[in-house]
């Protein structure tokens, strides 16, 4: 999977969990949870779903590395 494909998968998953968000409102460098008001339950659901599609499980200790869309894509690329 290319970085671009991963980015699309992540965006799709965010929109699935939070359908009221418009894709253009996702700032790639903003804190995902704070900027989109995604609480810890929904954030965990997003990571669980991404683990299924991408096959990378993000340990809790690495949450700091997946805080923004850009960081999350970088993280998945690195751990694929």
């Amino acid at each position, binding site marked *: 999977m290319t970085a671009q494909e991963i980015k699309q998968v992540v965006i799709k998953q965010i929109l699935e969990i*939070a*359908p*009221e968000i418009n894709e253009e409102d996702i700032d790639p460098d903003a804190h995902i*949870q*704070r900027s989109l*008001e995604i*609480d*810890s*339950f*929904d954030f*965990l*659901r997003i*990571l*669980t779903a991404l*683990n299924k599609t991408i096959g990378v*499980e*993000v*340990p*809790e*200790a690495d949450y700091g590395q997946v805080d923004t869309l850009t960081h999350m894509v970088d993280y998945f690329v690195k751990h694929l």
Partner: protein
Amino acid sequence: MSTFAMPSLGADMKSAVLMEWKVKEGDSVKKGDVIAEVETSKGVIEIEVFEDGIVEKILVQEETESAVGTPLAIISSSNESAVVEKPASPDMAVEEAESPSIPPQPISDKPIETQRVKSSPLARKKAKELGIELSTLAKDDKPVHLEQVESKKVSSTTEMSGMRQAIAKAMSRSNADIPHYYLSTPINMTSALHWLEEQNRNRTIEDRILPAALLIRAVVRTLQEVPQLNGFWMDDELHMSEDINPGIAIALRKEGLITPALLNAEHMDIDTTMRALSDLVTRTRSGKLRGSEITQQTITITNLGDLGVESVYGVIYPPQVALVGLGRIIDAPWADGDSLSVRKVMQATLAGDHRATDGRTGGQFLNKLDQILQTPEELL
């Protein structure tokens, strides 16, 4: 034989729309089975049957608005012969036993549009949220789907939503009737969070426990020790509840808040608490709650989690007698003996009904909660 009637899902609810039958005539049902979905301002709620039996006759068609107490179906008990067909009286139908209390939950009493346009329940819900007239989307008598509504997103109306009105009413009544007292204490969460991290390190992502589940489990354990805060104020006296059904404040994405009950949380360990909570959050946000979950809360827990502020002084939902507020966990200076260090600290707050309990009981609760959170391994 008895009639199954439109249940009251909140003190303000006058009627609801029966969206879908989950059973058909001749089906056998067991107590607790979901037999229909009704639509209220809280979204689509699954309603449950309260006895074993056979669905003898369905009296109300789908997409029909019915007042609370209206007979919806006739249920014959399993051992009755299935031929009797006399109209049942509507008053025997209301399931009084089911709700020890009817907390004033946000239910709209705005008239629901009478001319119904065919649509999926989700589409109808979304249209209501966005203030879109469904009839403007209907084409050639085809049912309206969610995507059509979403593509129609327009500037939101300034009119108060049904849910906002219902919250306004319930909270005004609470503040007028309940003499609240408030207590607050900081709790050092360092060891609890450390323990949780250790637990999660050995778990797969599906089995991970969030701090919210640990906290709710700790509150439930504490309530077993201080049961006076778990119950109702009715007929000028405190009725303690054996069941612990904490109403969990869950913010909806668009607007508003629902506090559905985590039913019988006293029987759950930390894993079942996490699973039940996760399921409850998901169903609340997708509009799939059960009638019992929005009527049987015995106390409310507001957990502001990682996005909230540091402390919350809540307003009690009558007839409940307490509300537990758990603030965001922050890094704060913490004095231990004569040394000062930075620790993970959470402000725990209790709002109590002073008619039911005194500050002493509330203080015992907060102290016990603190104590339990210092030995998290006992919460497994």
